[in-house]
């Protein structure tokens, strides 16, 4: 294990920002700490770095308990959200800083920096000051600086937050490649679920300081541990039907609910891709009117209204949409292929109920 947190808690005053969190990160992993803003993920990262002290619990780096080690002794590379480059130093001096502090010899520093400049595509910029760089270049300098002294782990706080959307996409791909080449254990914090799904090997999901789920992108997407994860990762239609005669009903929709007592309230969720639509009104059981169409590139999102007033979101490809001859205001028939009981009154979550399973695409869910 490269990094382990055991029962780590951090309190500021009376409130626990991080509450009894246990995580292990394997050597060479690229892990995302994902959660809404204020979820405690940055605090976890800063505790691993030694910039914050845990109120309770232990932190291990490569098997060594580091609670009592200072930031300087932990041998970590940390990339701050706004990069925190030294304004008064050139790119070269920024990257050389950690090496000079560690008393590397001059030729070794030169060699190491030449190597990093090449790896990070920063050749020719070594005499520039941070304010003379673009956002993407700054980020690369920040990562090069953190990696220069060969740390055992690389920690990144919202690494893509400070650059615009187009560069963000490039940087994500670049980070994955870099991690593949260097194989340094890496943990990054993000509030963007799409980013976590795309970049990370494994994802840790936090909300309000509590660990909700740890898993691969596919696991957290397909088997969310609870309602929070299900709703946070990807989009979901959520309904609260009531059981009558072992069927959960809301409006005209019915979901089989064997074993559930009459009067019980369930919370049911289904992904937009699980809704099938046809312009042939006889094909599926339910009817609805198409209200809005949102173009998202290759994919489309449509909002439909059922006669009872329920609104359902669905997703389809552009080809399918035009093939069916769909447009706003058109009446369609639909079925829900697959759904999940997210919560019920006082009971654990059951396995996913399947009505004709098709493996969903994990990436690119953007609805």
């Amino acid at each position, binding site marked *: 294990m490269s990094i382990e947190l055991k029962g780590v808690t951090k309190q500021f005053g009376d409130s626990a920002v991080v509450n009894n969190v246990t995580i292990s990160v394997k050597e060479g992993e690229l892990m995302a700490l994902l959660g809404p803003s204020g979820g405690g993920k940055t605090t976890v990262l800063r505790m691993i770095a030694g910039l914050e002290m845990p109120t309770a619990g232990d932190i291990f780096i490569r098997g060594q308990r580091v609670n009592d080690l200072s930031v300087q002794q932990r041998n970590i590379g*940390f990339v701050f959200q706004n990069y*925190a*480059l*030294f304004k008064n130093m050139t790119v070269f001096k920024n990257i050389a800083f950690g090496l000079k502090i560690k008393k590397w010899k001059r030729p070794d520093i030169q060699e190491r920096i030449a190597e990093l400049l090449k790896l990070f595509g920063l050749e020719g910029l070594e005499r520039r000051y941070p*304010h003379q760089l673009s956002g993407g270049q700054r980020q690369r300098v920040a990562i090069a600086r*953190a990696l220069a002294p060969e740390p055992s782990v690389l920690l990144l706080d919202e690494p893509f937050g400070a650059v615009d959307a187009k560069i963000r996409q490039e940087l994500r791909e670049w980070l994955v490649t870099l991690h593949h080449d260097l194989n340094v254990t890496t943990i990054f914090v993000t509030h963007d679920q799409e980013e976590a799904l795309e970049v990370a090997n494994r994802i840790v999901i936090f909300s309000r300081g509590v660990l909700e789920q740890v898993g691969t992108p596919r696991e957290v997407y397909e088997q969310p541990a609870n309602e929070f994860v299900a709703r946070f990762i990807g989009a979901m239609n959520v309904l609260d039907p009531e059981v009558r005669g072992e069927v959960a009903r809301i409006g005209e929709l019915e979901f089989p609910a064997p074993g559930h007592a009459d009067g019980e309230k369930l919370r049911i969720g289904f992904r937009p891709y699980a809704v099938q639509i046809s312009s042939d009104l006889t094909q599926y059981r339910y009817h609805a009117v198409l209200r809005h169409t949102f173009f998202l590139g290759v994919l489309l999102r449509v909002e439909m209204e059922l006669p009872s007033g329920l609104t359902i979101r669905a997703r389809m490809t552009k080809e399918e949409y035009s093939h069916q001859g769909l447009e706003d205001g058109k009446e369609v028939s639909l079925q829900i292929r697959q759904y999940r009981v997210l919560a019920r009154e006082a009971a654990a979550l059951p396995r996913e109920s399947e009505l004709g399973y098709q493996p969903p695409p994990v990436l690119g869910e953007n609805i």
Partner: protein
Amino acid sequence: MVHQASQRGTEESPLAKWTLITIALAFCFVFLLLPLANVFAQALTQGWRYYCKSLLEPDSLASIRLTLVVAAISVPLNVLFGLAAAWAIAKFQFRGKAFLITLIDLPFSVSPVVAGLMLVVLFGLQGFFGKWLDAHDIKIIFAVPGIVLATVFITFPFVARELIPVMQATGTEQEQAALTLGANGWQTFWHVTLPSVKWGLIYGIILCNARAMGEFGAVSVVSRHIAGHTETMPLRVQALYEGTTASSAAAAFALASLLATLALFTLGIKTFLEWKQERAERLIVGRVDG
């Protein structure tokens, strides 16, 4: 027509513009430039020779030396205090922070004469520590230490006041980055913190120095004006001016002109630094826009 109307909405008429500019310039000329020029003119009424001679007269020379010594002690002390105070205020959260900021401003609001009297009350022969100091044969009031203390008190806010906003704007992330790269506290301060507040610090030092050399009120109370011993330049100027002969007045103006020259020199450096910093900032903005 629409264009003209909107222009009138934001711009004053030429008459108002030129009236205001004339008033401002006339005011500066009458109250600032004219008296300053007069000081130099008066200083030279007895000729260049007398000008140099009066400056090299032993008591005047001693006052110049004392002023430089006082500045050389109080400015570094203020730098030290200013850095510590600005650091504490900008980078830490603690109880009584607002009170500390108010306290730093105290010398701005207290009359310098009152400041001098406070020192007399503390360290004078009849004062709080007077007996103990007398018993140990330490002289503070009516001696150089008192003058230094008075100057330190008066110049107290200058460096801290300049540094606090700069340090607050810089934040703590660069320092934290240095820590994660293995730097200890001193290395972080020397390589990261100090360079980032460099201009604010230099600016503060210049203002502090100007005030340290020019202070009259507080120093006057604690000095007793012993010619050749406890007279700083401003005190010496006054003593000479109160002398009866015309040549004495000329000597006063000679010393005053030297003091004014030091002030103008300081002002020049200040303006240069401001220009330089502004240029650096424009460069940054230009890069961001581009």
